[in-house]
């Protein structure tokens, strides 16, 4: 069953030089109970996609076009009061920097209780009880209910943020670089916790990250973004074994492989295009080793190159297979 269907989403930001096409014509869908990884270099538009789905884009940004159906309701055209009811109840976030995502002057318990009471017609006692259960579920003792955010370590705050995201049993959770800023060990613990909860509770999660090994280790499917567009979308296994798009290949080659220390790490030469005046053709053209004449003129669409494996490239078969 499809839980989220994003169609032709475009979001631009106004700048001094014109509008930056931060997200252009992005489409993907997600099944219930699935963990979808959204990956790409910093600045490629991952957060913008997430915030567009939540309709949290504010000036200078604007959602130019597109649809985002969550369980059949288009979030992008929903009325404001409808949207406010949907937020957190149906779609919640584990924010990018949990360090500052909690209000410093209220206890963590209060902040979780608040999100429950806004959306559900339950007594305060019930909300408190559920909050305590949630805290235990993410590995925080319930007697820390009355502690303030600054009394927790970064990893613990991240756990609080996860408990808060779970508080209304949402249909979809977006985790945007949740572990950035934590040490490697804590990152691994938090990701393991998110994965565990996803399996146990059957959650649908979009996991946004720039860390390819991390994403491929926990996600069912992976969408790779480059300069505001999705360039490849497939099951994790297909991405790893049959990676097709030249950019995805570059990304894999640029990632060190812990199980294969001899692997040569090659970064992609060149830099990302200017999003205010993006290339008319393929946005990866300047950096692509396999580019052709047609790539300069026309922009490739996301095509199904194998069952349930999509790539946006004019090469025969949508790219070339990653050479292991």
């Amino acid at each position, binding site marked *: 069953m499809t839980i989220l269907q994003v169609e032709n989403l475009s979001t631009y930001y106004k700048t001094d030089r014109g509008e930056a096409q931060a997200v252009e014509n992005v489409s993907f869908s997600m099944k219930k109970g699935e963990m979808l990884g959204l990956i790409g270099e910093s600045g490629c538009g991952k957060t913008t996609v997430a915030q567009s789905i939540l309709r*949290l884009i504010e000036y200078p940004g604007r959602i130019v076009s597109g649809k985002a159906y969550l369980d059949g309701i288009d979030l992008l055209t929903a009325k404001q009061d409808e949207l406010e009811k949907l937020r*957190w109840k149906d779609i919640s976030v584990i924010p990018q920097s949990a360090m*500052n*995502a*909690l209000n410093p*002057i209220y*206890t963590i318990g209060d902040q979780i209780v*608040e999100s429950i009471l806004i*959306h559900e017609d339950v007594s305060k006692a019930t909300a408190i009880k559920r909050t305590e259960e949630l805290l235990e579920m993410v590995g925080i003792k319930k007697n820390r209910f009355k502690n*303030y955010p600054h009394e927790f370590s970064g990893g613990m705050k991240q756990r609080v943020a996860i408990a808060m995201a779970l508080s209304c049993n949402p249909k979809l959770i977006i985790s945007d670089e949740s572990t950035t800023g934590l040490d490697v060990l804590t990152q691994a613990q938090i990701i393991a916790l998110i994965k565990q909860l996803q399996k146990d509770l059957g959650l649908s999660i979009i996991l946004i990250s720039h860390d390819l090994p991390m994403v491929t280790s926990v996600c069912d499917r992976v969408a790779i973004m480059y300069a505001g567009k999705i360039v490849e979308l497939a099951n994790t296994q297909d991405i790893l074994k049959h990676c097709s798009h030249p950019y995805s290949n570059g990304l894999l080659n640029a990632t060190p492989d812990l199980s294969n220390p001899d692997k040569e790490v090659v970064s992609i030469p060149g830099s990302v295009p200017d999003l205010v005046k993006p290339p008319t053709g393929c946005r990866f053209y300047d950096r692509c080793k396999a580019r052709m004449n047609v790539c300069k003129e026309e922009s490739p669409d996301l095509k199904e190159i194998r069952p349930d494996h999509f790539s946006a490239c004019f090469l025969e078969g949508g790219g070339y297979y990653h050479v292991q």
Partner: protein
Amino acid sequence: MIFYILKRITTALLALFVIATLTFVLMNLIPGDPFTNEKSVPEQVLKNLRAHYGLDQPLIIQYFKYMAGIMTLDFGPSITSDTRTVNELILSGFPVSAVLGIQALVIAVVFGMTLGIIAAIKHNGWLDYISMVIAILGLSVPSFVLSTVLINYFAIKLEWLPVATWGTWRHTVLPSLALAVGPLAYIARLTRSSILEVLSSDYVQTAVAKGVTGSRLIFRHILRNALIPVVTVLGPISAGILTGSFVIEQIFGIPGIGKYFVQSISDRDYPVILGTTIFYSAILILFILIIDLTYGFLDPRIKLARRR
């Protein structure tokens, strides 16, 4: 909490002692004494005068005598107004300055915060620009210019309010306004920038994503956080306003204590210099203590009791 307050009071007394000592030393380092300017007075009279005020004794003796006086809250006689003591000057002037000050403070806080909030909410709109122009004018126009304009317009031209002197409540309106404008502008700017900072913070975005809206969002998640820095500056601002303004009290002919801060120095009126300095410091320290206590309630990151 009690322990913390007691500790703060002890530190405050120590600070006042140091301030008194420093002021005493600095004051005596300035060449001349209270009678240097009395040219027409015979040498013998001056000598008697100096002896009368104990100025002929060694400094160290003067210092100990003075400190002993302070212990019993006796700040000595005023040399310039030979019949009155410093205590009397402060006791008669302070209530006047304080009445003006409290009114000015209320105006500054209420309108300053309102202006700041409006400016922040209408960020980059014309209301924001108007508010900030008012704020910048308020900070940059000197109070004597402002007072003169106020008098000219509201007292002389429109004849709504009395020109000057001290008497009924109507007499307090213009000087209170004049006194309020500077701090008002300062509070407005601080409120605005503080709210803008909170608005762009991650936790406000979390609150919006959580579906928090309306007054709950504004008061609980934005204003309470944003006002913490504003409360911090209220300590020094209040102390400054309540102890009067030399310029404004002169222009409006108000018998407050503002003038003693300036006059006592040009007159070398040693006891008044010391008395007003210690008085001002005490008020300042008191207000900072009050603000720190309030702060503890506003911001859980500050735990007063634990900061022993």
